[in-house]
């Protein structure tokens, strides 16, 4: 599925400017521990978290993740957004909880793969 379709289906707000959202989404990963994300998230997954320190951009870039979704309307530091634009990592904001976002994403992606 394309990232912009995920954006519409999850009703996400894109908070980075000039980041390329023409990307594939093959799955998702959710954790707030960056060490776990580095160990377990895979390329072309979207990462759902409430962690908003700018190190999230480095981790997403390292793993070539499709995007980061920051749940629960957590405030995102300006430096995180600047870094994300430099590294071309789209960041979305959502008022939904991680639980809701994962549930919806899991449903739409597993339906697509059938």
């Amino acid at each position, binding site marked *: 599925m394309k990232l912009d379709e995920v954006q519409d289906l999850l009703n996400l707000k894109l908070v980075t400017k000039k980041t390329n959202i023409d990307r594939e989404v093959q799955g998702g990963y959710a954790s*707030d521990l*960056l*060490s776990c994300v*580095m160990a377990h998230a895979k390329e072309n997954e979207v990462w759902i978290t409430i*962690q908003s320190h700018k*190190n999230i951009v*480095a981790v997403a870039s390292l793993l070539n993740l499709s995007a980061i979704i920051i749940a629960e309307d957590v405030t995102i530091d300006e430096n995180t957004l600047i870094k994300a634009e430099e590294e071309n990592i789209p960041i979305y904001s959502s008022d939904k909880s991680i639980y809701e976002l994962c549930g919806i994403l899991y449903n739409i992606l597993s339906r697509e793969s059938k």
Partner: protein
Amino acid sequence: MYSEYPADFHIHTCLSPCAEDEMIPVNILNMAKLIGTRIIGICDHNSAANVKPFLEIASEYEILVLPGMEVQSAEEVHMLCFFENLSGALEWQEYVYQHLPQIDNNPRYFGHQWLVDGKGNVLGEEKRMLLTSTKLTIDQIYKKVYELNGLLIPAHVDKKHYSIVSQLGFIPENIKVDAIEFSKAISENEFRKAFPHMAKHTFITSSDAHRLQEMIYQKTFLHIKSLNFNEIVLALKGLEGRKVLIKD
């Protein structure tokens, strides 16, 4: 001439809900004296309110007490902060308290948060929950500690929870730390192998004692000229012949 001073930078008192009631100043100082520890860091969770009674009775011991705190950032990173004197620690505490969520502690689940005098007489109990994240980001913590001329040391970086590595993957490049602490769960050699990118930092390892008997883990030694804060700063920075050694 340089002398070698055994140090333990990370000791909790009975103010930390997870620490035993026996962790009162007189007991901790006597245990340090028994073991031979000459430098002790008092680091309760998100509070420095029990530092003063240590300083009041420390002159009876030849032990340097470092006013400190183990603050928990918004990212759930534990950081040790140290200040030269009580006023610095209390100014820091005021800043932390402003950013501590207003949640009452439940002693039945988490334990008591006793405020004591040097002998351990209870002066009161901190009602606010200390065992939680402050709203301070790691950047805010770094800036404020730096502004107050304090020392900043990421705690137990090898742990899978509440460490700068577990929470943030690595130390953000803008954060200048004065040392890094590894826990007693790992040896220095194991730590060096597991965290090769940490090699440029000064290492300390501490007991993180929540009960008296845990203070027996004491492996950090400072080569300094005399027992004062400035000498500790020099040792952590590895300047003017001062240094920190870990003996396994």
